[in-house]
């Protein structure tokens, strides 16, 4: 039955030859050269497919990075610097170190600080409430406490503190920015994580003049400008009755914190101040000791919550 083998060989070889020709053209026309480095880079990525990088999925991001000459503009918020560094080495490309960032909540309107004046009962969505009115308090800028930011976080990095009615960002925030887009009041901001997770920022975005602001919320920034004067590094600016600390310039010296008459400036993860219990912030420090679960000032109190 060797003729079967002969037929086999003839047929298949003929097919093979035909296929070779056809596929040669295919290969020529559809050059789908897949850079093997794409796979490597994809391996390095966290595979969260969150879109935080601005690409539809990790692989697309990997492709873009492999193709780009300069990857310093790219950033995977989930993987962070380590990942980006690894990718940079893998690709032999330059990488500009990105300060790791984290979301902060610029509102401290807990019920003690900000009297509830009404009770909101619409759809439980900040956007809906924001569309409707100032919210349950008289502050037209502050957090509405319906948790739109919590819903959109893919990383379970933000939760609503029942007691304060304010969201709390946990350390595992990857700075993807989803909550920032979700918040109708633009309360959330990304800031550098700072040395040892230390951060200082104005925990208020109320642009009203001092009196109504203060009336609505006892810890509102009243735009008095004391901190601006105090800051040795010119990191603080004042605009529309509201101070803002530039995190690039801020050296975390903590000088501004005690001068604020309304305690609107927040310091996070600093060791407790020595002596001088008179410093306004100290009171807070004691009511929210680092050791136990967040209470008064819990929303930035990452360490204690996880």
């Amino acid at each position, binding site marked *: 039955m060797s003729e079967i083998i002969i037929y086999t060989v003839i047929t298949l070889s003929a097919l093979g030859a035909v296929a070779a020709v056809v596929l040669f053209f295919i290969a020529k026309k*559809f050059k*789908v050269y*897949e850079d093997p480095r*794409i*796979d490597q880079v*994809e391996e390095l990525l966290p595979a969260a497919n969150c879109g935080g990088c*601005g690409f*539809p999925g990790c*692989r*697309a991001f990997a*492709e*873009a990075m492999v*193709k*780009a000459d300069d990857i310093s503009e790219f950033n995977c918020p989930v993987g962070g610097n380590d990942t980006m560094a690894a990718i940079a080495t893998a690709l032999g490309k330059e990488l500009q170190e990105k300060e790791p960032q984290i979301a902060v909540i610029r509102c401290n309107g807990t019920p003690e600080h900000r009297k509830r004046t009404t009770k909101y009962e619409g759809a439980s969505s900040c956007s809906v409430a924001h569309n409707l009115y100032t919210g349950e308090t008289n502050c037209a800028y502050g957090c509405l406490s319906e948790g739109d930011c919590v819903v959109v976080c893919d990383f379970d990095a933000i939760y609503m503190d029942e007691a304060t009615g304010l969201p709390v960002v946990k350390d595992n925030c990857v700075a993807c920015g989803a909550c920032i887009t979700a918040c109708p009041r633009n309360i959330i901001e990304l800031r550098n994580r700072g040395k040892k997770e230390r951060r200082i920022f104005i925990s208020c975005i109320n642009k009203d003049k001092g009196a109504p602001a203060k009336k609505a919320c006892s810890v509102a920034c009243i735009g008095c400008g004391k901190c601006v004067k105090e800051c040795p590094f010119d990191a603080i600016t004042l605009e529309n009755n509201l101070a803002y600390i530039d995190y690039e310039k801020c050296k975390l010296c903590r000088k501004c914190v005690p001068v604020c008459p309304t305690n609107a400036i927040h310091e996070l993860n600093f060791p407790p101040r020595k002596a001088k219990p008179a410093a306004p912030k100290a009171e807070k420090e004691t009511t929210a000791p680092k050791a136990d679960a967040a209470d008064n000032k819990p929303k930035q109190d990452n360490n204690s919550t996880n």
Partner: protein
Amino acid sequence: MIEHDGIIVSSSPTKAKVRILNQSACISCQMKGNCNLSDMKEKFIDVKTMGKTYAENDKVTIIGTETMGFKALFYGYMLPFLILLFTVILLTLLKIPELTVGLIGLSTLIPYYIGLKLFHKKIENKFSFYLKNR
């Protein structure tokens, strides 16, 4: 309306070449990066830019109309299919042997595609996309 995300590869005032990331059935398949069997992962689309220039690596969305898609489908697949089917049925009814029927049927595609090539210009005018920044 069909929308497709893509990235500009090159751009001139009249035309831009856009690489589209293929959202094929394989989008959910994790092996897609390695599977070449019949899936081309990228396509390059020429789009009229209407005077706008785009920078390389710009993320854009390609927009076409659904009717255009169906038209393309018709010319690309359905019409040759109908011709083929018609030929095969006709020849079968004429009691022509199967082998001949099959071969003739397949070979109707050759003149069809030659025809398509001849109408190249006409077709080109029918299918054009435009771009939107993402």
